[in-house]
Protein backbone atom coordinates (compact mmCIF):
# COMPACT_ATOMS: atom_id res chain seq x y z
CA UNK A 1 0.00 0.00 0.00
CA UNK A 2 2.69 2.42 1.00
CA UNK A 3 4.73 1.57 -2.05
CA UNK A 4 1.78 2.06 -4.32
CA UNK A 5 1.06 5.45 -2.95
CA UNK A 6 4.55 6.84 -3.19
CA UNK A 7 4.95 9.52 -5.76
CA UNK A 8 1.31 10.37 -5.76
CA UNK A 9 0.29 13.95 -5.40
CA UNK A 10 0.11 15.13 -1.85
CA UNK A 11 -3.07 14.74 0.10
CA UNK A 12 -4.52 11.99 -2.00
CA UNK A 13 -7.34 10.45 -0.08
CA UNK A 14 -8.07 6.78 0.15
CA UNK A 15 -11.37 7.07 1.86
CA UNK A 16 -12.16 3.37 1.92
CA UNK A 17 -8.88 2.71 3.67
CA UNK A 18 -9.22 5.74 5.87
CA UNK A 19 -5.61 6.51 5.23
CA UNK A 20 -4.13 9.80 4.25
CA UNK A 21 -1.03 9.93 2.11
CA UNK A 22 1.16 13.00 2.24
CA UNK A 23 4.30 13.18 0.16
CA UNK A 24 4.17 9.45 -0.18
CA UNK A 25 4.11 8.69 3.51
CA UNK A 26 1.23 7.47 5.55
CA UNK A 27 0.96 10.29 8.02
CA UNK A 28 -2.00 9.57 10.13
CA UNK A 29 -5.60 8.54 10.03
CA UNK A 30 -7.70 10.51 7.61
CA UNK A 31 -9.55 11.91 10.57
CA UNK A 32 -6.89 14.20 11.87
CA UNK A 33 -6.58 17.63 10.41
CA UNK A 34 -3.62 19.94 10.80
CA UNK A 35 -4.65 23.50 11.55
CA UNK A 36 -2.23 26.41 11.53
CA UNK A 37 -3.15 29.72 13.11
CA UNK A 38 -1.52 32.98 12.04
CA UNK A 39 -1.12 35.29 14.99
CA UNK A 40 0.09 38.84 15.44
CA UNK A 41 1.42 40.74 18.40
CA UNK A 42 -0.21 44.14 18.75
CA UNK A 43 -0.17 47.02 21.21
CA UNK A 44 -2.93 46.62 23.78
CA UNK A 45 -5.52 49.08 22.53
CA UNK A 46 -6.81 49.51 26.07
CA UNK A 47 -3.39 50.59 27.37
CA UNK A 48 -2.21 54.19 27.42
CA UNK A 49 -1.10 54.96 23.86
CA UNK A 50 -0.02 58.51 23.15
CA UNK A 51 0.54 60.54 20.06
CA UNK A 52 3.97 61.99 19.59
CA UNK A 53 4.59 64.15 16.54
CA UNK A 54 2.18 62.21 14.40
CA UNK A 55 3.38 58.80 15.58
CA UNK A 56 1.86 56.49 18.12
CA UNK A 57 4.04 55.95 21.16
CA UNK A 58 3.50 52.38 22.27
CA UNK A 59 6.35 52.30 24.78
CA UNK A 60 4.09 52.92 27.75
CA UNK A 61 1.66 50.19 26.80
CA UNK A 62 2.06 46.44 26.70
CA UNK A 63 2.05 44.17 23.70
CA UNK A 64 -0.60 41.46 23.51
CA UNK A 65 -1.93 38.70 21.31
CA UNK A 66 -4.34 40.25 18.80
CA UNK A 67 -7.82 39.50 20.17
CA UNK A 68 -9.15 38.20 16.84
CA UNK A 69 -6.18 35.86 16.55
CA UNK A 70 -6.92 34.65 20.08
CA UNK A 71 -10.39 33.69 18.82
CA UNK A 72 -8.91 31.92 15.80
CA UNK A 73 -6.55 30.03 18.11
CA UNK A 74 -9.34 29.07 20.47
CA UNK A 75 -11.57 28.06 17.57
CA UNK A 76 -8.81 25.86 16.12
CA UNK A 77 -7.99 24.22 19.46
CA UNK A 78 -11.68 23.60 20.21
CA UNK A 79 -12.01 22.10 16.71
CA UNK A 80 -9.22 19.58 17.37
CA UNK A 81 -10.61 18.77 20.80
CA UNK A 82 -13.84 17.81 19.09
CA UNK A 83 -12.58 16.08 15.95
CA UNK A 84 -8.93 15.23 16.68
CA UNK A 85 -5.92 16.78 14.97
CA UNK A 86 -3.30 19.33 15.88
CA UNK A 87 -2.84 23.09 15.91
CA UNK A 88 0.37 24.98 15.12
CA UNK A 89 1.03 28.71 15.04
CA UNK A 90 2.92 31.17 12.85
CA UNK A 91 3.82 34.72 13.80
CA UNK A 92 5.47 37.38 11.64
CA UNK A 93 7.13 39.97 13.82
CA UNK A 94 10.17 41.14 15.76
CA UNK A 95 11.95 38.99 18.41
CA UNK A 96 9.63 40.39 21.12
CA UNK A 97 6.79 38.52 19.43
CA UNK A 98 8.04 35.35 21.13
CA UNK A 99 6.02 36.28 24.19
CA UNK A 100 2.83 36.09 22.15
CA UNK A 101 3.82 32.71 20.71
CA UNK A 102 4.37 31.46 24.29
CA UNK A 103 0.83 32.52 25.03
CA UNK A 104 -0.73 30.50 22.20
CA UNK A 105 1.49 27.54 23.06
CA UNK A 106 0.17 27.79 26.61
CA UNK A 107 -3.38 27.81 25.26
CA UNK A 108 -2.72 24.44 23.63
CA UNK A 109 -0.96 25.00 20.32
CA UNK A 110 1.62 22.24 19.67
CA UNK A 111 4.46 24.17 18.04
CA UNK A 112 5.22 27.54 16.54
CA UNK A 113 7.20 29.22 13.79
CA UNK A 114 8.46 32.74 14.39
CA UNK A 115 9.20 34.56 11.13
CA UNK A 116 11.43 37.58 11.61
CA UNK A 117 12.21 40.09 8.91
CA UNK A 118 15.94 40.65 8.45
CA UNK A 119 16.02 44.40 8.61
CA UNK A 120 14.10 45.11 11.72
CA UNK A 121 13.39 48.71 10.80
CA UNK A 122 11.76 47.43 7.63
CA UNK A 123 9.62 44.85 9.37
CA UNK A 124 6.17 45.20 7.88
CA UNK A 125 4.71 44.77 11.35
CA UNK A 126 6.49 47.75 12.82
CA UNK A 127 4.24 50.41 14.24
CA UNK A 128 3.70 53.01 13.12
CA UNK A 129 5.00 54.17 9.78
CA UNK A 130 4.80 50.99 7.71
CA UNK A 131 1.19 50.26 8.35
CA UNK A 132 -0.91 48.63 7.01
CA UNK A 133 1.37 46.64 4.78
CA UNK A 134 -0.83 43.65 4.49
CA UNK A 135 0.64 42.63 1.14
CA UNK A 136 4.14 42.20 2.54
CA UNK A 137 2.80 40.10 5.39
CA UNK A 138 0.66 37.99 3.13
CA UNK A 139 3.64 37.39 0.83
CA UNK A 140 5.90 36.34 3.72
CA UNK A 141 3.22 33.97 5.00
CA UNK A 142 2.48 32.57 1.54
CA UNK A 143 6.19 31.81 1.00
CA UNK A 144 6.16 29.99 4.30
CA UNK A 145 2.99 27.99 3.67
CA UNK A 146 4.09 27.01 0.18
CA UNK A 147 6.60 24.71 1.86
CA UNK A 148 4.19 23.40 4.50
CA UNK A 149 1.45 20.81 4.58
CA UNK A 150 -1.75 21.72 6.36
CA UNK A 151 -5.50 21.38 6.11
CA UNK A 152 -6.70 24.70 7.48
CA UNK A 153 -5.09 28.09 7.99
CA UNK A 154 -7.05 30.09 10.56
CA UNK A 155 -6.46 33.82 11.01
CA UNK A 156 -8.16 36.48 13.06
CA UNK A 157 -10.35 38.59 10.81
CA UNK A 158 -8.28 41.70 11.40
CA UNK A 159 -5.59 43.09 13.69
CA UNK A 160 -6.50 45.46 16.49
CA UNK A 161 -3.84 47.97 15.51
CA UNK A 162 -4.29 48.35 11.75
CA UNK A 163 -7.93 47.23 11.66
CA UNK A 164 -7.39 46.43 7.99
CA UNK A 165 -8.46 42.79 7.66
CA UNK A 166 -6.73 42.29 4.32
CA UNK A 167 -4.07 39.67 5.04
CA UNK A 168 -6.26 36.52 5.28
CA UNK A 169 -7.89 36.96 1.86
CA UNK A 170 -4.55 38.01 0.34
CA UNK A 171 -2.89 34.89 1.72
CA UNK A 172 -5.64 32.65 0.34
CA UNK A 173 -5.36 34.33 -3.05
CA UNK A 174 -1.57 33.95 -3.14
CA UNK A 175 -1.88 30.27 -2.19
CA UNK A 176 -4.77 29.71 -4.60
CA UNK A 177 -6.93 28.28 -1.81
CA UNK A 178 -10.63 28.74 -1.07
CA UNK A 179 -11.36 31.31 1.62
CA UNK A 180 -14.16 32.28 3.97
CA UNK A 181 -14.03 35.50 5.99
CA UNK A 182 -15.71 36.52 9.24
CA UNK A 183 -16.38 32.96 10.40
CA UNK A 184 -18.34 32.43 13.60
CA UNK A 185 -18.32 28.60 13.66
CA UNK A 186 -16.01 25.86 12.38
CA UNK A 187 -17.23 22.31 12.04
CA UNK A 188 -16.13 19.21 10.26
CA UNK A 189 -18.44 18.18 7.46
CA UNK A 190 -19.55 14.59 7.12
CA UNK A 191 -19.93 11.81 9.57
CA UNK A 192 -17.73 12.44 12.51
CA UNK A 193 -14.15 11.63 11.71
CA UNK A 194 -14.32 11.06 7.99
CA UNK A 195 -14.32 13.51 5.12
CA UNK A 196 -11.99 16.38 4.36
CA UNK A 197 -14.40 19.29 4.23
CA UNK A 198 -15.30 21.93 6.75
CA UNK A 199 -18.64 23.50 7.42
CA UNK A 200 -18.02 27.16 8.12
CA UNK A 201 -20.68 29.56 9.37
CA UNK A 202 -20.04 33.12 8.32
CA UNK A 203 -21.79 36.26 9.51
CA UNK A 204 -22.74 38.30 6.47
CA UNK A 205 -24.32 41.74 6.42
CA UNK A 206 -27.79 40.40 7.16
CA UNK A 207 -27.74 36.62 6.99
CA UNK A 208 -25.53 33.83 8.22
CA UNK A 209 -24.13 31.59 5.51
CA UNK A 210 -23.23 27.99 6.20
CA UNK A 211 -20.74 26.86 3.58
CA UNK A 212 -19.03 23.57 2.85
CA UNK A 213 -15.41 24.26 1.99
CA UNK A 214 -12.67 22.01 0.67
CA UNK A 215 -9.40 21.62 2.49
CA UNK A 216 -6.79 22.92 2.38
CA UNK A 217 -8.42 26.29 2.92
CA UNK A 218 -8.03 29.62 4.69
CA UNK A 219 -10.59 30.92 7.18
CA UNK A 220 -10.65 34.25 9.02
CA UNK A 221 -12.36 34.21 12.40
CA UNK A 222 -14.58 36.70 14.16
CA UNK A 223 -14.24 37.16 17.90
CA UNK A 224 -17.90 36.19 18.03
CA UNK A 225 -16.79 32.64 17.33
CA UNK A 226 -15.73 31.88 20.89
CA UNK A 227 -14.22 33.19 24.09
CA UNK A 228 -10.49 32.42 24.12
CA UNK A 229 -9.37 30.34 27.08
CA UNK A 230 -7.02 31.74 29.70
CA UNK A 231 -3.97 29.44 29.82
CA UNK A 232 -3.69 27.50 33.07
CA UNK A 233 -0.49 26.79 34.99
CA UNK A 234 -0.08 23.40 33.36
CA UNK A 235 -0.40 24.99 29.93
CA UNK A 236 2.08 27.73 30.79
CA UNK A 237 4.61 25.25 32.15
CA UNK A 238 4.12 22.92 29.20
CA UNK A 239 4.62 25.76 26.73
CA UNK A 240 8.25 26.13 27.87
CA UNK A 241 9.12 22.81 26.29
CA UNK A 242 7.26 23.34 23.05
CA UNK A 243 9.38 24.18 20.01
CA UNK A 244 9.52 27.65 18.44
CA UNK A 245 11.38 27.64 15.12
CA UNK A 246 12.83 30.99 14.16
CA UNK A 247 13.02 31.80 10.47
CA UNK A 248 14.73 34.92 9.17
CA UNK A 249 13.40 36.21 5.87
CA UNK A 250 14.01 39.22 3.65
CA UNK A 251 11.40 41.86 3.22
CA UNK A 252 9.49 41.22 -0.01
CA UNK A 253 10.21 43.88 -2.60
CA UNK A 254 8.20 45.43 -5.39
CA UNK A 255 4.80 45.38 -3.73
CA UNK A 256 2.19 48.12 -4.10
CA UNK A 257 2.82 50.70 -1.43
CA UNK A 258 0.59 52.13 1.25
CA UNK A 259 2.11 54.73 3.54
CA UNK A 260 0.95 56.18 6.80
CA UNK A 261 1.75 59.86 6.71
CA UNK A 262 0.74 60.62 10.28
CA UNK A 263 -1.63 59.73 13.06
CA UNK A 264 -4.01 62.14 14.67
CA UNK A 265 -6.38 62.03 17.57
CA UNK A 266 -9.91 61.06 16.57
CA UNK A 267 -12.06 64.10 16.01
CA UNK A 268 -13.50 64.66 19.46
CA UNK A 269 -16.94 65.66 20.56
CA UNK A 270 -17.71 68.65 22.72
CA UNK A 271 -18.36 67.70 26.32
CA UNK A 272 -21.66 65.86 26.78
CA UNK A 273 -24.66 67.90 27.83
CA UNK A 274 -26.52 66.04 30.54
CA UNK A 275 -30.24 66.64 30.19
CA UNK A 276 -32.79 66.92 32.94
CA UNK A 277 -36.35 65.57 32.84
CA UNK A 278 -38.08 66.96 29.77
CA UNK A 279 -34.99 66.18 27.64
CA UNK A 280 -35.81 69.10 25.34
CA UNK A 281 -32.57 69.10 23.35
CA UNK A 282 -32.70 65.38 22.61
CA UNK A 283 -36.38 65.50 21.69
CA UNK A 284 -35.76 68.45 19.36
CA UNK A 285 -32.98 66.56 17.62
CA UNK A 286 -35.31 63.65 16.97
CA UNK A 287 -38.56 65.40 15.96
CA UNK A 288 -37.57 65.76 12.28
CA UNK A 289 -37.21 61.98 12.06
CA UNK A 290 -40.56 61.02 13.55
CA UNK A 291 -42.37 58.95 10.99
CA UNK A 292 -45.26 60.30 9.00
CA UNK A 293 -45.03 63.84 10.35
CA UNK A 294 -47.48 65.19 12.88
CA UNK A 295 -50.24 62.60 13.34
CA UNK A 296 -53.86 63.61 13.75
CA UNK A 297 -54.76 64.15 17.40
Amino acid at each position, binding site marked *: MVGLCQGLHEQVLYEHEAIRVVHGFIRQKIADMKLIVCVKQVPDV*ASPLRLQEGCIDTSAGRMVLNAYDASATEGAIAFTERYGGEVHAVLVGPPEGRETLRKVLAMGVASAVHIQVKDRAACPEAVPNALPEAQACAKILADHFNKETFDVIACGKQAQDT*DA*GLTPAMLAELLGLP*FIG*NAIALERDGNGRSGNHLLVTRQGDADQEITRIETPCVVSCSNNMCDPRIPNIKGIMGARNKPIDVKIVSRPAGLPGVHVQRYEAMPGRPRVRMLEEGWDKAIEA*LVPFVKGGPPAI
Partner: protein
Amino acid sequence: MARLLTFAEIRAGRITRLSLEALSRCREIARQRRGSTVAVAIVSDNPLAHFEELARYGAEEVFAVTDTVFASATRTPRSAPLTAALAGVIKQAVPDVVVLPSEESVKEILGALAIRVFAPALPDVSGFDVLDGAVKAQRPVFTAGFMAHVRAEGAPVLVSLRAGSYAACQNPEPSSMRIRNVPFAFDEKVAGKTLRKVVKAASGRIDLSETSVVVAAGRGVRDEKGKRLIEELAALLGAAVGASRGAIEAGLFPPSSLIGQTGKTVSPDVYIAVGISGALQHVAGMSGSRTVIAINKDADAPVFRHATYGIAGDLYEVLPAFTEALKQKASTGD
Protein backbone atom coordinates in the same frame (compact mmCIF):
# COMPACT_ATOMS: atom_id res chain seq x y z
CA MET B 1 -8.36 64.09 -14.30
CA ALA B 2 -9.16 60.71 -12.89
CA ARG B 3 -11.14 57.66 -13.87
CA LEU B 4 -13.27 56.69 -10.90
CA LEU B 5 -14.99 53.34 -10.61
CA THR B 6 -17.40 52.42 -7.85
CA PHE B 7 -19.14 49.17 -7.06
CA ALA B 8 -22.90 49.09 -6.53
CA GLU B 9 -23.65 46.29 -4.09
CA ILE B 10 -27.16 44.88 -4.14
CA ARG B 11 -28.83 43.54 -1.03
CA ALA B 12 -32.43 42.36 -0.81
CA GLY B 13 -32.98 43.50 -4.40
CA ARG B 14 -31.79 47.05 -3.86
CA ILE B 15 -28.58 48.97 -4.27
CA THR B 16 -27.29 49.61 -0.76
CA ARG B 17 -27.25 53.12 0.58
CA LEU B 18 -23.54 52.84 1.27
CA SER B 19 -22.93 52.12 -2.44
CA LEU B 20 -24.86 55.28 -3.31
CA GLU B 21 -22.81 57.23 -0.76
CA ALA B 22 -19.63 56.00 -2.46
CA LEU B 23 -21.01 56.93 -5.88
CA SER B 24 -22.03 60.39 -4.63
CA ARG B 25 -18.57 61.01 -3.19
CA CYS B 26 -16.98 60.01 -6.52
CA ARG B 27 -19.22 62.43 -8.38
CA GLU B 28 -18.21 65.20 -5.99
CA ILE B 29 -14.53 64.44 -6.67
CA ALA B 30 -15.17 64.32 -10.42
CA ARG B 31 -16.72 67.78 -10.29
CA GLN B 32 -13.58 69.14 -8.61
CA ARG B 33 -11.18 67.39 -10.94
CA ARG B 34 -11.85 68.50 -14.47
CA GLY B 35 -12.20 65.78 -17.06
CA SER B 36 -12.83 63.02 -14.53
CA THR B 37 -15.32 60.23 -15.17
CA VAL B 38 -17.48 58.19 -12.82
CA ALA B 39 -18.29 54.61 -13.72
CA VAL B 40 -20.16 51.99 -11.72
CA ALA B 41 -19.62 48.24 -11.65
CA ILE B 42 -22.75 46.20 -11.10
CA VAL B 43 -22.79 42.45 -10.66
CA SER B 44 -26.13 40.67 -10.76
CA ASP B 45 -28.33 38.14 -12.51
CA ASN B 46 -30.35 41.13 -13.69
CA PRO B 47 -28.34 44.36 -13.59
CA LEU B 48 -30.82 46.11 -15.88
CA ALA B 49 -33.22 46.51 -12.96
CA HIS B 50 -30.85 48.95 -11.30
CA PHE B 51 -29.79 51.16 -14.21
CA GLU B 52 -32.45 53.77 -13.60
CA GLU B 53 -31.38 54.29 -10.00
CA LEU B 54 -27.70 54.52 -11.02
CA ALA B 55 -28.62 57.20 -13.57
CA ARG B 56 -30.42 59.18 -10.88
CA TYR B 57 -27.25 59.11 -8.79
CA GLY B 58 -25.18 60.38 -11.68
CA ALA B 59 -23.34 57.35 -13.04
CA GLU B 60 -21.90 58.12 -16.47
CA GLU B 61 -20.86 54.64 -17.41
CA VAL B 62 -22.00 51.25 -16.15
CA PHE B 63 -19.94 48.08 -16.34
CA ALA B 64 -22.45 45.26 -15.99
CA VAL B 65 -21.60 41.66 -15.21
CA THR B 66 -24.59 39.41 -15.77
CA ASP B 67 -24.64 35.84 -14.51
CA THR B 68 -27.09 33.56 -12.74
CA VAL B 69 -24.37 32.74 -10.22
CA PHE B 70 -25.27 36.10 -8.65
CA ALA B 71 -28.95 35.24 -8.23
CA SER B 72 -30.09 35.20 -4.62
CA ALA B 73 -30.76 31.46 -4.55
CA THR B 74 -27.51 29.89 -5.64
CA ARG B 75 -25.29 27.17 -4.26
CA THR B 76 -22.11 29.10 -4.92
CA PRO B 77 -21.02 31.55 -2.22
CA ARG B 78 -20.70 34.99 -3.67
CA SER B 79 -17.09 35.79 -2.79
CA ALA B 80 -15.18 33.90 -5.50
CA PRO B 81 -17.39 34.91 -8.46
CA LEU B 82 -17.58 38.48 -7.14
CA THR B 83 -13.78 38.72 -6.99
CA ALA B 84 -13.57 37.40 -10.55
CA ALA B 85 -16.29 39.77 -11.78
CA LEU B 86 -14.72 42.87 -10.23
CA ALA B 87 -11.27 41.92 -11.50
CA GLY B 88 -12.83 41.62 -14.97
CA VAL B 89 -14.46 45.04 -14.71
CA ILE B 90 -11.22 46.64 -13.49
CA LYS B 91 -9.34 45.10 -16.42
CA GLN B 92 -11.84 46.54 -18.89
CA ALA B 93 -12.48 49.91 -17.23
CA VAL B 94 -8.81 50.65 -16.38
CA PRO B 95 -9.73 53.00 -13.50
CA ASP B 96 -7.36 55.11 -11.43
CA VAL B 97 -9.39 54.58 -8.28
CA VAL B 98 -11.88 51.88 -7.31
CA VAL B 99 -14.24 52.78 -4.47
CA LEU B 100 -16.13 49.93 -2.84
CA PRO B 101 -18.72 50.02 -0.06
CA SER B 102 -17.16 48.52 3.09
CA GLU B 103 -19.82 45.87 3.60
CA GLU B 104 -19.12 42.32 4.78
CA SER B 105 -19.28 41.06 1.19
CA VAL B 106 -16.54 43.50 0.20
CA LYS B 107 -14.43 42.99 3.33
CA GLU B 108 -14.27 39.30 2.47
CA ILE B 109 -12.79 39.86 -0.99
CA LEU B 110 -10.87 43.16 -0.87
CA GLY B 111 -7.56 41.45 -0.07
CA ALA B 112 -7.95 38.89 -2.84
CA LEU B 113 -8.93 41.59 -5.33
CA ALA B 114 -5.88 43.68 -4.40
CA ILE B 115 -3.60 40.72 -5.11
CA ARG B 116 -5.38 39.83 -8.33
CA VAL B 117 -5.20 43.30 -9.87
CA PHE B 118 -1.86 44.10 -8.16
CA ALA B 119 -3.14 47.21 -6.42
CA PRO B 120 -2.68 48.83 -3.04
CA ALA B 121 -5.79 48.73 -0.85
CA LEU B 122 -7.04 51.24 1.70
CA PRO B 123 -9.73 49.42 3.65
CA ASP B 124 -12.54 50.90 5.71
CA VAL B 125 -11.73 54.58 5.22
CA SER B 126 -13.88 57.35 6.68
CA GLY B 127 -12.81 59.88 4.04
CA PHE B 128 -10.71 60.02 0.89
CA ASP B 129 -9.45 62.32 -1.81
CA VAL B 130 -8.00 61.64 -5.24
CA LEU B 131 -4.66 63.18 -6.23
CA ASP B 132 -2.61 62.68 -9.38
CA GLY B 133 -1.73 59.01 -9.38
CA ALA B 134 -2.48 58.60 -5.71
CA VAL B 135 -5.24 58.47 -3.12
CA LYS B 136 -5.16 60.14 0.28
CA ALA B 137 -7.47 58.76 2.94
CA GLN B 138 -8.29 58.74 6.62
CA ARG B 139 -8.66 55.43 8.43
CA PRO B 140 -9.72 54.97 12.04
CA VAL B 141 -7.21 52.53 13.57
CA PHE B 142 -6.43 51.05 17.02
CA THR B 143 -10.12 50.30 17.61
CA ALA B 144 -10.97 53.81 16.46
CA GLY B 145 -8.52 55.23 19.01
CA PHE B 146 -6.57 57.17 16.38
CA MET B 147 -7.03 58.42 12.86
CA ALA B 148 -4.35 57.33 10.39
CA HIS B 149 -3.73 59.60 7.42
CA VAL B 150 -2.64 57.26 4.67
CA ARG B 151 -1.56 57.56 1.08
CA ALA B 152 -1.40 54.93 -1.62
CA GLU B 153 0.07 55.12 -5.08
CA GLY B 154 -0.89 52.92 -7.96
CA ALA B 155 -3.30 52.44 -10.79
CA PRO B 156 -5.73 51.51 -9.60
CA VAL B 157 -5.86 52.19 -5.87
CA LEU B 158 -8.61 50.23 -4.11
CA VAL B 159 -10.57 52.05 -1.41
CA SER B 160 -13.39 50.70 0.74
CA LEU B 161 -15.62 53.30 2.34
CA ARG B 162 -17.33 53.23 5.74
CA ALA B 163 -21.06 53.78 6.00
CA GLY B 164 -22.25 57.32 6.62
CA SER B 165 -18.99 59.02 5.65
CA TYR B 166 -20.67 60.98 2.86
CA ALA B 167 -24.27 61.76 2.00
CA ALA B 168 -25.99 59.96 -0.88
CA CYS B 169 -27.20 62.68 -3.26
CA GLN B 170 -29.35 62.28 -6.33
CA ASN B 171 -28.68 64.33 -9.44
CA PRO B 172 -31.34 66.90 -10.38
CA GLU B 173 -31.39 65.29 -13.83
CA PRO B 174 -30.73 61.61 -14.44
CA SER B 175 -27.47 61.21 -16.32
CA SER B 176 -27.26 59.51 -19.67
CA MET B 177 -25.21 56.38 -19.18
CA ARG B 178 -23.13 54.25 -21.47
CA ILE B 179 -23.65 50.58 -20.72
CA ARG B 180 -20.77 48.14 -21.13
CA ASN B 181 -21.32 44.46 -20.77
CA VAL B 182 -18.32 42.75 -19.26
CA PRO B 183 -17.71 39.16 -20.38
CA PHE B 184 -17.80 36.76 -17.47
CA ALA B 185 -17.36 33.04 -17.10
CA PHE B 186 -17.07 31.35 -13.76
CA ASP B 187 -16.46 27.70 -13.12
CA GLU B 188 -18.26 26.87 -9.89
CA LYS B 189 -16.05 23.84 -9.36
CA VAL B 190 -12.93 25.92 -8.87
CA ALA B 191 -14.47 27.88 -6.01
CA GLY B 192 -14.01 24.93 -3.65
CA LYS B 193 -17.09 26.01 -1.75
CA THR B 194 -20.77 25.16 -1.74
CA LEU B 195 -23.39 27.10 0.11
CA ARG B 196 -25.33 24.68 2.29
CA LYS B 197 -27.74 26.93 4.03
CA VAL B 198 -28.50 30.58 4.61
CA VAL B 199 -29.89 31.50 7.99
CA LYS B 200 -31.97 34.56 7.21
CA ALA B 201 -32.20 37.43 9.61
CA ALA B 202 -35.78 38.11 10.68
CA SER B 203 -37.62 39.74 7.80
CA GLY B 204 -39.00 43.24 8.01
CA ARG B 205 -36.00 44.50 9.94
CA ILE B 206 -34.66 47.83 8.84
CA ASP B 207 -31.06 47.63 7.67
CA LEU B 208 -28.65 49.36 10.06
CA SER B 209 -26.72 51.16 7.36
CA GLU B 210 -29.84 52.32 5.55
CA THR B 211 -31.38 54.63 8.13
CA SER B 212 -30.83 58.12 9.51
CA VAL B 213 -31.53 57.07 13.09
CA VAL B 214 -30.28 54.03 14.99
CA VAL B 215 -31.60 52.94 18.38
CA ALA B 216 -29.07 50.62 20.00
CA ALA B 217 -29.60 48.40 23.02
CA GLY B 218 -26.94 47.37 25.51
CA ARG B 219 -26.63 45.05 28.46
CA GLY B 220 -28.95 47.35 30.40
CA VAL B 221 -31.80 46.02 28.28
CA ARG B 222 -32.44 42.88 30.28
CA ASP B 223 -35.65 41.34 28.99
CA GLU B 224 -38.45 41.28 26.44
CA LYS B 225 -40.03 44.29 28.06
CA GLY B 226 -36.89 46.34 27.55
CA LYS B 227 -36.64 45.10 23.99
CA ARG B 228 -40.22 46.24 23.37
CA LEU B 229 -39.40 49.73 24.68
CA ILE B 230 -36.46 49.91 22.26
CA GLU B 231 -38.61 48.75 19.36
CA GLU B 232 -41.36 51.25 20.15
CA LEU B 233 -38.95 54.16 20.03
CA ALA B 234 -37.39 52.79 16.83
CA ALA B 235 -40.79 52.35 15.18
CA LEU B 236 -41.74 55.94 15.96
CA LEU B 237 -38.54 57.15 14.30
CA GLY B 238 -38.41 54.65 11.45
CA ALA B 239 -35.07 53.75 12.97
CA ALA B 240 -33.02 50.58 12.72
CA VAL B 241 -32.40 48.62 15.91
CA GLY B 242 -28.80 47.84 16.79
CA ALA B 243 -27.24 46.15 19.77
CA SER B 244 -24.00 45.87 21.69
CA ARG B 245 -22.32 42.53 22.22
CA GLY B 246 -23.82 42.22 25.69
CA ALA B 247 -27.39 42.54 24.43
CA ILE B 248 -26.78 39.96 21.72
CA GLU B 249 -25.20 37.51 24.15
CA ALA B 250 -28.34 37.85 26.28
CA GLY B 251 -30.19 36.43 23.27
CA LEU B 252 -32.53 39.38 22.84
CA PHE B 253 -31.21 40.63 19.50
CA PRO B 254 -29.91 38.81 16.40
CA PRO B 255 -26.16 38.77 15.67
CA SER B 256 -26.71 40.80 12.50
CA SER B 257 -27.65 43.77 14.70
CA LEU B 258 -24.22 43.95 16.31
CA ILE B 259 -22.67 47.41 16.19
CA GLY B 260 -19.00 47.75 16.94
CA GLN B 261 -15.54 46.74 15.99
CA THR B 262 -16.62 43.23 14.99
CA GLY B 263 -20.09 44.06 13.77
CA LYS B 264 -21.32 46.96 11.74
CA THR B 265 -19.97 50.44 11.58
CA VAL B 266 -22.75 53.00 11.46
CA SER B 267 -22.70 56.79 11.17
CA PRO B 268 -26.34 57.87 11.32
CA ASP B 269 -27.62 61.39 11.89
CA VAL B 270 -28.76 60.40 15.36
CA TYR B 271 -27.56 57.44 17.40
CA ILE B 272 -29.50 56.59 20.55
CA ALA B 273 -27.49 54.37 22.91
CA VAL B 274 -29.77 52.77 25.48
CA GLY B 275 -28.28 50.89 28.42
CA ILE B 276 -24.91 50.74 26.70
CA SER B 277 -21.85 51.25 28.89
CA GLY B 278 -19.65 52.41 26.03
CA ALA B 279 -16.89 49.82 25.70
CA LEU B 280 -14.09 50.70 23.27
CA GLN B 281 -15.18 47.98 20.84
CA HIS B 282 -18.72 49.30 20.69
CA VAL B 283 -17.75 52.95 20.35
CA ALA B 284 -15.53 52.03 17.37
CA GLY B 285 -18.68 51.13 15.47
CA MET B 286 -20.65 54.31 16.15
CA SER B 287 -18.18 57.11 16.80
CA GLY B 288 -18.90 58.67 13.40
CA SER B 289 -22.54 59.36 14.30
CA ARG B 290 -23.46 63.03 14.03
CA THR B 291 -25.57 63.33 17.19
CA VAL B 292 -25.40 60.77 19.98
CA ILE B 293 -28.03 60.51 22.70
CA ALA B 294 -27.03 58.21 25.55
CA ILE B 295 -29.39 56.84 28.18
CA ASN B 296 -27.72 55.03 31.08
CA LYS B 297 -28.46 54.76 34.77
CA ASP B 298 -24.78 55.07 35.63
CA ALA B 299 -23.96 58.76 35.24
CA ASP B 300 -20.25 57.86 35.06
CA ALA B 301 -20.61 55.34 32.22
CA PRO B 302 -17.95 55.84 29.52
CA VAL B 303 -20.69 56.13 26.88
CA PHE B 304 -21.33 59.70 28.05
CA ARG B 305 -17.83 60.66 26.89
CA HIS B 306 -18.95 59.90 23.36
CA ALA B 307 -22.41 61.45 23.58
CA THR B 308 -23.83 64.80 22.54
CA TYR B 309 -26.69 64.57 25.00
CA GLY B 310 -26.78 62.40 28.10
CA ILE B 311 -29.71 61.18 30.12
CA ALA B 312 -28.80 59.60 33.44
CA GLY B 313 -31.65 57.33 34.41
CA ASP B 314 -33.09 53.83 34.36
CA LEU B 315 -34.09 53.03 30.79
CA TYR B 316 -37.20 51.23 32.01
CA GLU B 317 -38.43 54.53 33.44
CA VAL B 318 -36.91 56.94 30.93
CA LEU B 319 -37.86 55.25 27.65
CA PRO B 320 -41.66 55.14 27.98
CA ALA B 321 -41.76 58.79 29.03
CA PHE B 322 -39.21 59.77 26.40
CA THR B 323 -41.09 58.07 23.57
CA GLU B 324 -44.32 59.66 24.76
CA ALA B 325 -42.76 63.13 24.98
CA LEU B 326 -41.35 62.74 21.46
CA LYS B 327 -44.77 61.70 20.14
CA GLN B 328 -46.35 64.73 21.80
CA LYS B 329 -43.75 67.15 20.49
CA ALA B 330 -43.97 65.79 16.96
CA SER B 331 -47.75 65.97 16.91
CA THR B 332 -47.98 69.53 18.16
CA GLY B 333 -45.22 70.50 15.74
CA ASP B 334 -43.82 73.26 17.92
